[in-house]
């Protein structure tokens, strides 16, 4: 058995306690180990992705127990893509946190960061529904620590809401898993797929309840509209580099929906037919609308970025909720884009907030204003889905995938109007922040603009810009290499919608 497959989980799980126990008083060593771990993670995930490129499904049986009884990690194109995305997002975010000195403003940033990565990697790799829950808890408990990193009243208050909401989500997850287990007698995803397909007709009621509860859990994580309330105040009050890392956490929800509702409750399964399509799409449309309006109405930069993230989740979930192969391919392309774009927006928001405070008000030009406003402009057009960046291509793919769907005019209207409102909101914020200030008399500006509470870190602030340009480079690369990227996304979607290979490999039917 190839042990590389478990490395993305084990590596951060070893580095994090090492950072806590051995080097907790040496900031530079913490930074070195944390960075080394993330770089190594990127290398490992790229290697794994290269192995998954030809469409083989690789299974890692923990403790060498065969699949329905033991826990398995599964690598296919989708999970390979997600772990590569995670590690490539973590690298600039960590660079930013180090460069801006966020990691010095509270204890144990690096250890929590590693635990968070461990949870995310595990959630993407696991092939067992209960283990998905466990990895959700790992990533959540690390995110609770990161969310209140560096303290402050509002951050704690937002943290309480965030924790309570997610704990409720976790209990709902357990209820859903219990229901599924009581019907099928298994929690291994591949085994569930087999069992659900052959469930007797009289048991489908319970199964449908379980499926809907599971969907609710993932909708909470993905901040689908009626369940999105935790996100704006949590992300807006979290340290911005942490919020940038959280950009992948909403995608964990989207990933789980995509995985579970193609593998287990696929479109062709009788028992749960029509369950998800009925209300996932309207909810996703509303999510996009609410996100766009939130961007327009935000008075603080953090909230603007948070609502931008919600809007992009709306577009992503619209594509996912169609449950067709072309739509899933569009969703995967847009998923990569929106993760990078949302993270970039959070980091740029932090650059502004470090210098001018959190409010979107006309203020005097700040240091490095040209560079920051250019970055803000790039992040805004990326998130709103304007050409030339990859958001435009992603949205085009999503729009293109709606052919033959009944609600297609509605989808077109909401996506296009949502993009328009988002770009207006971004333009409003950008012009208030970067343009209006040039006309202000200095004393007027002093009364309206509070100086930032934290003084700028003494070290040269090049690293934050390196991080931002790294993310922007990722977006540009995604645009330039849109051809190969969409081909990979299409291959991934094809693999998702023909899950037989996945099931057979996991259950060992085609024994090697």
């Amino acid at each position, binding site marked *: 058995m190839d042990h590389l497959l478990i490395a993305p989980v084990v590596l951060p799980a070893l580095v994090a306690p090492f950072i806590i126990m051995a080097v907790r008083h040496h900031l530079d060593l913490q930074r070195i180990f944390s960075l080394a771990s993330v770089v190594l993670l990127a290398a490992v995930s790229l290697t794994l992705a290269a192995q998954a490129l030809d469409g083989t499904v690789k299974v890692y049986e923990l403790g060498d127990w065969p699949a329905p009884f033991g826990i398995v990690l599964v690598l296919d194109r989708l999970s390979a893509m997600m772990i590569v995305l995670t590690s490539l997002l973590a690298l600039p975010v960590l660079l930013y946190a180090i460069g801006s000195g966020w990691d010095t403003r509270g204890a144990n940033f690096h250890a929590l960061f590693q635990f968070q990565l461990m949870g995310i990697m595990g959630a993407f790799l696991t092939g067992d529904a*209960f283990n998905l829950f*466990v990895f959700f*808890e790992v990533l959540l*408990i690390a995110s*609770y*620590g990161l969310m*209140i990193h560096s*303290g*402050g*009243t*509002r*951050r*704690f*208050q*937002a*943290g*309480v*809401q965030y*924790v*309570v909401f997610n*704990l*409720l989500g*976790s*209990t709902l997850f*357990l*209820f859903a*898993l*219990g*229901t599924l*287990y*009581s019907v099928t*007698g298994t*929690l291994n995803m591949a085994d569930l797929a087999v069992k659900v397909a052959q469930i007797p007709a009289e048991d489908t009621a319970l199964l449908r309840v379980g499926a809907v509860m599971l969907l609710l859990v993932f909708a909470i994580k993905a901040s689908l509209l009626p369940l999105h309330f935790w996100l704006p*105040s949590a992300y807006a*009050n979290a340290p911005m580099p942490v919020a940038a890392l959280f950009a992948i956490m909403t995608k964990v929800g989207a990933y789980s929906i995509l995985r579970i509702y193609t593998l287990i409750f696929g479109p062709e399964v009788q028992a749960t037919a029509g369950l998800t399509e009925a209300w996932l799409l309207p909810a996703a449309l509303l999510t996009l609308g609410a996100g766009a309006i939130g961007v327009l109405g935000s*008075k603080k930069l*953090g909230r603007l970025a948070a609502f931008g993230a919600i809007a992009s989740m709306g577009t992503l979930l619209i594509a996912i909720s169609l449950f067709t192969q072309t739509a899933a391919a569009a969703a995967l392309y847009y998923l990569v884009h929106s993760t990078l774009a949302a993270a970039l927006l959070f980091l740029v928001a932090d650059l502004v*907030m470090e210098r001018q*405070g*959190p*409010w979107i*008000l006309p203020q005097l030009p700040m240091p490095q204003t040209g560079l920051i406003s250019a970055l803000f402009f790039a992040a805004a057009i990326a998130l709103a889905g304007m050409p030339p960046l990859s958001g435009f291509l992603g949205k085009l793919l999503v729009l293109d995938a709606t052919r033959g769907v009944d609600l297609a005019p509605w989808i077109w209207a909401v996506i296009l109007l949502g993009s328009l409102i988002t770009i207006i909101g971004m333009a409003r914020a950008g012009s208030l922040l970067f343009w209006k200030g040039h006309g202000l008399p200095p004393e007027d500006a002093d009364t*309206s603009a*509070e100086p930032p*509470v934290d003084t700028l870190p003494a070290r040269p602030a090049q690293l934050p810009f390196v991080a931002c340009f790294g993310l922007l480079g990722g977006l540009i690369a995604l645009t330039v290499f849109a051809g190969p990227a969409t081909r990979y996304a299409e291959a991934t979607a094809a693999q998702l919608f023909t899950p037989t290979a996945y099931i057979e490999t996991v259950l060992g039917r085609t024994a090697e």
Partner: protein
Amino acid sequence: MELLVASAVGILTAAGIYLILRRRSFPVILGLSLITYAVNVFLFATGRLATAAPPILNKYEEVAYTDPLPQALVLTAIVISFGMTAVVVMIALGAYLSSRDDSTAMPVETEGAGDDA
């Protein structure tokens, strides 16, 4: 016994949700604990209820056994929920100590005032 277990799960959940909707840290934490108890009992019951049956297979004689997997799941869930309760207590305490208010709702903020970002 089924009625007893089912109503226990239902009442615990209902009470928990009621307490969480009170929006004060202490009732919320209490409510969360009640819901986690409810979910533990529920998980325990998903392997079918059987009294006085061992959770192991005996290959030498034909005895009834109860499904061991839900018990393992419950064990994991209990550990996780304990940890989570500890975390939420600490965060709620931090929020209370710094704001002198145990409401879990976010206070309305006014422009330019009182930000600690």
